[in-house]
């Protein structure tokens, strides 16, 4: 099926390397980034930040700062409290950590904003900020995941440092016998470093109050719509009050998903001061005080049978959430997407996020990417251990189209993924046998070449399963001039949505690409959509424009048919000219039709609306899967431990490719970030909680010399969405790291295994493997940290003293900790003997259950839900007096903690 097949002769735009619409302004210095916007009377902000990782604020003296030239205000949290802000996560659930605009009595990380100075220039604001005196009683900080398990509480009002927790130690019982019986058991531990997302444009915010509540906010963000909704919601304002404009944004990568402490503080300050206030984050702040990403410690154990087929797996995942995560996160997506592309019979996991006194966790391109990294590096390690080719090992275990539909062990349904087909395409285009010969020859000469392969699938275009992931609306019209205008809620931080959407419209409508203008980047344009988040815009907005253009085409045809007394079927539109089959003399330009449609309503069909407009909101399938197989070839210099990447080939299947230049640009950008993660980038903290890479001299970003030429093989199996696209924004950053690590491990295999993968693989860490000793100094402190950090296990569900069964009857105020945040609900139970029925009630509605069983004080019941997906929730609760605790197994989402008290 070719979903974009068109009538013969029509201009093809989908699939073309069309130069981007945004280039005109971006290449000539006429883009409009937030710092380029000036508003009369605009003031500038500098933040006073904590130099201490953990402590109690004894006093803040702002007197000297207030007296400085140009200073208009100096605010602390005591001042900003006049503008109430209740922080939420990206999922619009309440932030669980006590996030405030500025530090409220305590500081929880170095860089925590404590005060803000507002002055006539940034330099003056910094002059004054340097004079704000903050007295802090310093306390021992909790810096690492190991510290968090045993150390003092990061947030004193919490029970422990577990920010989020999912999964189930019990599931290990199911998996362990399978592992015990496996022919081969292989374990991989990955310690992923902390990443600074580092978009080239730092965070930026200009808030201009225009009335009691009304405000225009120019913001570096990934979706003006999402940002406007977020700002209004956390400030308790009507959404219409907030207009967010973000014409050009210099990269986001997840960091700019939602406005966070500083941006909200600027907005609150503007409201308080009733003046336009601008804050442009500097690079020092961006590296040390923007949210960070990754920092995970993961161990995966996999059992294989004698034929190297997957039998079972167990994973223990921990992630440093920092002090103020932009959403507490145990990253259950790592586990959901660990195995859908493989035939894996049994999988169990426990997964936790930990609070520490470090900068908070934010999103970064493919936030769940660890699944591919730990799985694919383990598979290569297993292949070496078992003595089988890594490609062959994957062939035996991957899902091919002929194996589908299939449901993963955690319940993820897959029906059209092509990781196996991508791998075959890769193998057909890369001569592996020739490489092995070259590798053997090179080794004789003391040169160490390696080849790495990785395969994966990625969920893209999510819509309808969780807030704020929704469909997309397009408003489309032919202007009286015959030109076409589209109004979209897409947002480009380099994604080129104005280009790809124009290509779709031009092709579907039959007009020239140059005659299509796309407006986006303003919350006043289009309808709600979350913008660039989760590789979704090409899929969903692409489908929306595809259909909207068809609808508009139908309208044009109806008007033209009426004007020419022809049938609608006889009308075609091509190159902006409306043709009548068999009557070339009747051809008219779109402009002529449009002029009539707008200006001469009397000539339109009876009852037809004037103008030429169409609108469509596309709700795609809940999830669309993208698959890929990548391969890279490296040479490792055994003298210095340096890695040179010689070749990199991508075979990806992102369905319909609207613009190969844009698609390849997304893959390449992700791969460059992958190379940075594997070889260069690192944001370490010292034991006092100080971030150590405060400039680009220390935080090593990949440069042109670090990135090879990438080669692309597009598999292009259309998806089930309108247009057949699959998302491609994050893939390179997900599959890139294991591909490169596998190539390095292959090159190092004559020396030994990378037993434990500690990123980045600095030259020193590579020498650790080559020389089989601790050249890098990595092992010593790691072992220390490990021994000093016994895992604090969750208290087991002990049988408490039996309580009378009737005592659980009635209402309970309960909280279910879901992956998207805590869900508050009321549980109502009625017991008859040992059988329990009742309901759970949340703002979204009430769900009844029956057939529950009560054994002593332990209640078990099941409940089938349709939203966000069809899953069965299995509750297992223990009642103790007026308290209830326990867990809820939520199918593929793993287990979630339940707590509550009698209502």
């Amino acid at each position, binding site marked *: 099926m070719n979903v974009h097949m068109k009538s013969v002769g029509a201009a093809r735009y989908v699939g073309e390397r069309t130069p981007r619409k945004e280039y005109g302004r971006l290449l000539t210095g006429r883009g409009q980034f937030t710092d380029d916007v000036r508003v009369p009377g605009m003031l500038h902000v500098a933040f006073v930040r904590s130099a201490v990782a953990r402590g109690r604020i004894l006093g803040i003296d702002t007197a000297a700062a207030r007296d400085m030239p140009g200073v208009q205000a100096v605010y602390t949290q005591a001042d900003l409290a006049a503008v109430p802000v209740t922080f939420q996560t990206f999922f619009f659930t309440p932030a669980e950590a006590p996030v405030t605009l500025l530090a409220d009595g305590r500081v929880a990380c170095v860089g925590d904003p404590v005060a803000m100075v507002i002055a006539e220039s940034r330099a003056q604001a910094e002059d004054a900020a340097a004079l704000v005196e903050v007295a802090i009683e310093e306390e021992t900080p909790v810096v690492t995941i190991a510290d968090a398990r045993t150390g003092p509480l990061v947030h004193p009002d919490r029970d422990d440092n577990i920010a989020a927790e999912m999964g189930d130690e019990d599931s290990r019982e199911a998996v362990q016998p399978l592992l015990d019986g496996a022919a081969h058991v292989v374990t991989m531990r990955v310690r992923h470093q902390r990443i600074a997302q580092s978009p080239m444009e730092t965070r930026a915010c200009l808030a201009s109050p225009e009335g009691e509540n009304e405000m225009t906010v120019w913001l570096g963000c990934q979706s003006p719509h999402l940002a406007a909704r977020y700002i209004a919601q956390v400030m308790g304002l009507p959404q219409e009050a907030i207009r967010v404009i973000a014409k050009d944004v210099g990269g986001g990568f997840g960091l700019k998903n939602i406005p966070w402490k500083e941006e909200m503080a600027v907005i609150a300050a503007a409201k308080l001061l009733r003046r336009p206030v601008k804050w442009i984050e500097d690079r020092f702040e961006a590296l040390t005080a923007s949210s960070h990403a990754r920092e995970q410690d993961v161990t995966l154990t996999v059992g294989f049978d004698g034929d190297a087929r997957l039998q079972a797996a167990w994973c223990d995942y921990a992630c440093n959430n920092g002090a103020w995560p932009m959403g507490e996160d145990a990253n259950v997506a790592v586990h959901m997407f660990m195995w859908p592309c493989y035939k894996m019979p049994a999988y169990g996991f426990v997964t936790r996020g930990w609070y520490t006194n470090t900068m908070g966790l934010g999103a970064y391109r493919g936030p769940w990417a660890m699944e591919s990294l730990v799985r694919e590096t383990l598979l290569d390690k297993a292949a070496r251990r078992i003595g089988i080719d890594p490609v062959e090992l994957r062939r035996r275990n991957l899902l091919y189209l002929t194996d589908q539909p299939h449901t993963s062990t955690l319940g993820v349904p897959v029906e059209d993924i092509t990781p196996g087909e991508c791998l075959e395409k890769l193998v057909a285009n890369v001569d592996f046998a020739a490489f092995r010969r070259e590798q053997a020859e090179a080794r004789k000469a003391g040169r160490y070449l390696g080849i790495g392969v990785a395969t994966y699938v990625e969920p893209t275009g999510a819509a309808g399963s969780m807030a704020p992931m929704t469909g997309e609306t397009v408003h489309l019209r032919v202007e009286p001039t015959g030109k076409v205008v589209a109004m979209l809620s897409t947002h480009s931080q380099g994604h080129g949505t104005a280009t790809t959407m124009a290509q779709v419209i031009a092709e579907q409508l039959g007009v020239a690409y140059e005659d299509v203008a796309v407006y986006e980047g303003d919350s006043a344009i289009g309808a709600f959509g979350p913008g660039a988040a989760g590789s979704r815009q090409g899929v969903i907005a692409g489908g929306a424009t595809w259909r909207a253009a068809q609808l508009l085409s139908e309208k044009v045809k109806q008007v033209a048919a009426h004007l020419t007394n022809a049938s609608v079927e006889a009308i075609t539109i091509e190159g902006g000219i409306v043709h009548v089959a068999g009557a070339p003399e009747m051809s008219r330009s779109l402009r002529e039709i449009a002029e009539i449609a707008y200006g001469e309503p009397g000539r339109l069909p009876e009852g037809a609306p004037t103008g030429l407009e169409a609108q469509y909101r596309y709700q795609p399938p809940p999830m669309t899967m993208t698959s890929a197989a990548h391969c890279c070839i490296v040479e490792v210099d055994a003298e210095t431990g340096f890695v040179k990447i010689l070749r990199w080939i991508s075979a990806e299947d992102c369905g319909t490719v609207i613009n190969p230049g844009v698609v390849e640009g997304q893959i390449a950008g992700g791969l460059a970030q992958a190379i940075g993660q594997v070889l260069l980038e690192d944001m*370490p903290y010292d034991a006092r909680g100080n971030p150590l890479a405060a400039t680009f001299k220390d935080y090593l970003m990949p440069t042109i010399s670090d990135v090879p030429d990438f080669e692309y093989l597009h598999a292009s199996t259309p998806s089930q969405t309108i247009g057949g696209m699959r998302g491609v924004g994050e893939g390179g950053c997900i599959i890139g790291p294991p591909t490169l690590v596998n190539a390095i491990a292959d090159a190092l295999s004559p020396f030994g295994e990378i037993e434990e993968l500690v990123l980045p693989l600095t030259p020193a860490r590579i020498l650790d493997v080559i020389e089989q000793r601790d050249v890098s100094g990595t092992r010593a402190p790691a072992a220390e940290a490990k021994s000093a950090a016994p895992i604090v296990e969750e208290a087991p569900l002990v049988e408490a003293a039996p309580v009378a069964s009737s005592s659980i009857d009635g209402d309970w105020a309960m909280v279910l900790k879901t992956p998207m945040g805590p869900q508050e609900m009321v549980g109502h139970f009625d017991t008859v003997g040992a059988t329990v029925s009742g309901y759970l009630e949340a703002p979204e509605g009430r769900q009844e259950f029956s057939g529950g069983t009560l054994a002593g004080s332990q209640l078990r019941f099941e409940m089938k839900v349709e939203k966000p997906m069809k899953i069965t929730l299995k509750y297992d609760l223990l009642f103790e007096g007026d308290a209830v605790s326990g867990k809820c197994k939520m199918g593929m989402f793993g287990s979630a903690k339940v707590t509550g008290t009698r209502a």
Partner: protein
Amino acid sequence: MKPAPFDYVRPSSVAEACRILDEAGGGATVIAGGQTLMPLLNLRMSQPFILVDINGIAALKGVARVEGGIRVGPATRQADALRDETLARHLPAFTRALGHVGHHQTRNRGTIGGSIALGEPAAEMPATAVALGASIEIASVRGTRQVPADAFYVGPYMTVLEPDELVTGIVYPDWPQGHLVLFREVAQRPGDFALVGLVGALALEGGAISRAGIAWFGMGPTPVRARQAEAALLGAERARIDPHAIARAAVADTAPFDDHHASAEYRRTVGQRVFARALSETLDLRSAA
């Protein structure tokens, strides 16, 4: 990231510059290219009262043959020095090392004197000055003095330069025609400071080493002169040199440090290796020619 306020003066002579530095009583900082100073100013890690811009002093610019050597004016742009034929012909080690300093864009403004006076221990130009036996000309209202490069550096970013003093020239002694260049830099990206680096010159006479000057960068708190290696090389017949033994001697003089880019052990291990390789390649290249 804006500098704290300062006054700016642009003297037109060394005497005027020295007078300003003297009157500032330690509150003045000299700016030439500013490629290292400006980041420190922007980060407020350096907060002078007065910035003394020496770009207007013609006497501080240019490359000239002098008695027994070549004098490089401290305000000479790195890009100009890199294109200078006198330096390329007579001091190829200088030109080779300079090509690794910063990037095209920073070399267009950065100066030789700036790099020398800053004293970054992992930078190329201080080590090159030490290796080649350069001396640093210094002026102040108190007079002038000359300090050998290997006595100029006392610690990371610390030199013997007093607050009222100005570097007025770097004089590199002549090396015999046809001397050999020893150079290797191990850095993660182009333009980065070295994880480990070495630079030097070797002169041969009648098949034996007649003169050796070698220094490490990134291998200690200052550029480190490989004295033991120099001593071992001096007078040695080329054919009988054991590069590995010399490399061991060279590393014995270093005091490398741990940072988050590399461990001291990495620096020692790789330093010894690249030293041995550079030495054998340099000597083999000569015999091949």
